[in-house]
């Protein structure tokens, strides 16, 4: 017995089974099912391709990867050095011949982090776990043929962009305060200093003898020494944020360097009324009835001018220009970074702001605006580098047996045209060098070098001292170093942060002039 219409089934009636008196062969439907399964298996192949090719590098070199964890227990990690080859971290063997880590100084704890058998890793040690243990080769071609080598791991040394001497000076300048200093080369994005205080003893965490007690004590410490403040501390910026407002205002064309607001001088005494809330100033009786422009407003840190500029710019433009500078998402960097924000978002006023009051306050860095020190250093760096933001980086080279892979500077964002950046730079120069500006940035000046910058005094609400801020760059006419300083509850910007910046810029000058 065979079926009436044969075994192959691909009859003409196969496509219209319900109309014919006869039934189509099973072959036709079997063929379609075979096709469906082939497609499904094609989907499997695509899925495998996604995880094994597209996601291969980032998953297999993640510090959570089993191979990375396994290797970090038995492989002596590569050295970490500063930009001149000064060793910052290296491995020694314990009595069982198992490796553990030692660090040159406590001053680098916030950036290099630690690698411990019992407590995992943090900082640069964590981000480059795979490279330091040699699980991932710096060169992807080497990774591909690794299976054919006898010893599959090639622990790499990392030469960072840090300057150990400057890092040490920054931590010393912060002293017993909680705070952070970021210094980078605006022309290349190389980070020279990434200091966070309080510091901690990473060697004691890594040493198997002392790790448990040390780690427990650090975790219990109310000053949060394990928080790398330079990259993950989130602070109210206060007036240093005015540079972001200036970038948005000039960049969007809503305001020019010459813009003045007629209502500004009159509002200085009683405050500017915005939506029933008064934006107050009171810092500069010296300007009297003069309507300030960008330079004048920046020199005396005029809240009212910046609130009006921010309102004129609009919430959408402020948020989107801030996003160009890195706000709104973690900055892509060698170690983990926290997200800076101009607003909590969700508002309907534009850009996520809820109303004019919030926008006016955010324009001079209060309201819901929160930033990381690294983010503010990038803002200064953008102005210093003619409006071009270089991608910040912390590593110069990975050095393995199989060769050296260098990290080259690259442009991250072209934020502003050079002429607009120059106008803001001139305002920042006036804020440090100007007759009135000096009073707000006392101590930031360095003899023999012009400095541009902006101080900030971030009110935290309540009765506590405000956060003390300074961002800037030098030399003002040929910027080679950008800096951000925050001292938690250090008082007004001029009291604590500006003098630290001045001191560190002076140290930098003699370091750079070696």
């Amino acid at each position, binding site marked *: 017995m065979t079926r009436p219409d044969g*075994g192959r089934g691909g009859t003409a009636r196969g496509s219209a089974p319900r109309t014919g008196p006869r039934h189509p062969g099973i072959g036709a439907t079997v063929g379609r099912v*075979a096709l469906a*399964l082939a497609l499904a*298996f094609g989907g*499997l*192949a695509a899925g495998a391709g996604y995880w094994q090719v597209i996601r291969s590098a980032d998953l297999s070199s993640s510090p959570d990867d089993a191979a990375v964890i396994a290797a970090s227990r*038995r492989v002596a990690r590569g050295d970490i050095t500063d930009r001149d080859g000064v060793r910052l971290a290296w491995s020694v063997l314990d009595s069982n011949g198992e490796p553990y880590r030692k660090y040159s100084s406590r001053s680098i704890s916030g950036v290099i982090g630690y690698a411990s058998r019992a407590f995992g890793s943090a900082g640069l040690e964590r981000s480059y776990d795979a490279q330091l243990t040699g699980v991932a080769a710096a060169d992807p071609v080497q990774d591909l043929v690794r*299976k054919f080598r006898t010893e599959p791991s090639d622990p790499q040394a990392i030469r960072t962009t840090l300057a150990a001497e400057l890092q040490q000076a920054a931590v010393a300048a912060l002293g017993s305060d909680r705070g952070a200093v970021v210094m980078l080369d605006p022309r290349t994005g190389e980070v020279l200093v990434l200091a966070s205080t309080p510091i901690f003893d990473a060697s004691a965490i890594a040493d198997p003898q002392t790790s448990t007690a040390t780690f427990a004590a650090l975790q219990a410490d109310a000053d949060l020494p394990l928080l790398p403040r330079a990259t993950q501390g989130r602070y109210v910026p206060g007036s240093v944020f005015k540079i972001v407002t200036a970038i948005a205002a000039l960049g969007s064309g809503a305001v020019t360097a010459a813009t003045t607001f007629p209502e500004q001088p009159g509002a200085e005494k009683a405050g500017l009324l915005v939506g029933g809330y008064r934006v107050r100033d009171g810092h500069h009786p010296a300007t009297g009835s003069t309507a300030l422009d960008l330079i004048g407003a920046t020199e005396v840190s005029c809240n009212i001018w910046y609130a009006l500029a921010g309102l004129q710019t609009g919430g959408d433009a402020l948020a989107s220009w801030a996003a160009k500078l890195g706000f709104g998402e973690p900055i892509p960097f060698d170690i983990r970074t926290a997200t800076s924000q101009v607003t909590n978002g969700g508002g309907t006023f534009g850009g996520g702001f809820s109303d004019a009051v919030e926008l006016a306050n955010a324009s001079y860095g209060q309201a819901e605006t929160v930033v990381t020190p690294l983010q503010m250093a990038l803002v200064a760096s953008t102005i210093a580098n003619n409006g071009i933001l270089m991608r910040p980086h912390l590593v110069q080279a990975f050095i393995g047996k199989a060769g050296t892979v260098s990290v080259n500077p690259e442009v991250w964002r072209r934020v502003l045209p050079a002429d607009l950046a120059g106008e803001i730079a001139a305002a920042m120069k006036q804020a440090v060098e100007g007759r009135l500006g000096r009073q707000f940035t006392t101590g930031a000046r360095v003899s023999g070098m012009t400095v541009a910058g902006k101080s900030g005094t971030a009110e935290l609400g309540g009765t506590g001292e405000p956060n003390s801020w300074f961002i800037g760059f030098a030399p003002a006419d040929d910027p080679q170093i950008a800096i951000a300083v925050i001292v938690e509850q250090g008082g007004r910007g001029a009291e604590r942060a500006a003098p630290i910046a001045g001191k560190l810029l002076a140290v930098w000058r003699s370091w750079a002039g070696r």
Partner: protein
Amino acid sequence: MTGSQPTGVPRGAGLRLPRPRFRPRELGLLAIVATVLAVGSASLAATRALRGEADPAASAGFLADGSGLLSFIGGLLAAHVLLVLSGRRTDQVLLPTVGMLGGISLLLMERLPQSLAGGLGLGRTQLVWLLASVALVGVIGAVVRSDAWLRLYKYSWAAVGVGILLVTFVFGHDVNGQRLTLSVGPVSGQPSELIKILLVVFLAGYLSENRPLLIEESSRVGPLRLPPIPYLAPMIAMWAIALSIVVVQKDLGAALLFFAVFLLLLYIATARVSFVVIGIMALLLGGAFLYQLLPHVRVRVDIWLDPFATASGNGYQVVQALHAFARGGLLGTGLGGGLPTIGGVLPIPALHTDFPFAALGEELGLVGILGILGLYLVVIERGLRIAASAADDFRAILAAGLSLVIGVQAFIIAAGNLKLIPLTGITLPFISYGGSSLLASGVIVGLLIALSDRGRDLPAVAESGPGRVQRMPEHGAR
């Protein structure tokens, strides 16, 4: 696990032995398989020798002296000889293909820590089951000539299946929160492996008999064309069985497999897409309901949506599997070179049963994964080809159903490993560790080979037993 011996020896065959028919294609393919597996075994031994010194902990428990592989290849050859002696004109590609899959499984199980299985150890235990599975392929492929014993008693088989299911519901014991294992005296196994074969046998009988009715008649409910109401009952029963397996056994994988195979066979038999659409809608509806109702379903789905959110908790296993794929990259680490152990513990829990696909993804790379997917596609293609050229509807649906069981099951677990669908704990046919699964797969491939018989001595369906010729739809069910 198959209590029933094949009873299909044709009448009058007596003791007359058939004339042997040589199978050159099968032999040639087996030679290639043996060569590839030997290279794999050598590579594994070399990796072990080179890396063993650097990391003794990682190589502890390795088992790769080649004797296991030799026995397995011997088993494949014995099955080949059996098929030659049977003198039948049957498929020559299936045995080498599943032989390759089984060989890969053996190398993997020999390479993993042997303590994962008690008694003989992981590699040796798997070897025993693989040999039994290959023996089933050979014996069933050589001996089973009539399908009457399957065709005539479809409701009995269905009753046996439901009975086993109910017994498992009541007496099965829970392993890892799933009630999958049934023990009778010293023998324990996973009944769902047997049930899936019984399901296909029943569906083949039922659908082939009622095919004309299902195609031509329909009842309308609003815009939907439904099957005739009396014939809707088995669909609803299937749906209920699948959901009850999820509820009682917490076995999402088996439920998904049963229901998918059912829908595909329904489509094959009727060519009506509307049935499949209705079935999928019913499945989604039931799934959404169970998601609300059952925590274990919710956990699985949440892990699937974002395993990295709970990378050190519920999502650990899935995340570790994805890392394994990532470590493998394009070319893999080589057999024995991957699966880094931390403190002697494998990175992925339940690797030998639920994640061999991820393990092979790491050690053989994307290239190896594509090869393994290709092998399954070959099994599916051969099986569906057998279905398309089968002598009648019963055989066609039976062959299609058997190959779909292998194909869909491989898809479900591979897709679960790759986070394409929620993970379910079913086995990868011929590769996962486990006796029940290997034996069931052996029976399936043996039956496929038997069904592929296109020799001159094809047993005529009508002569094979006391049953009716099935193409008489107006008589309805038996």
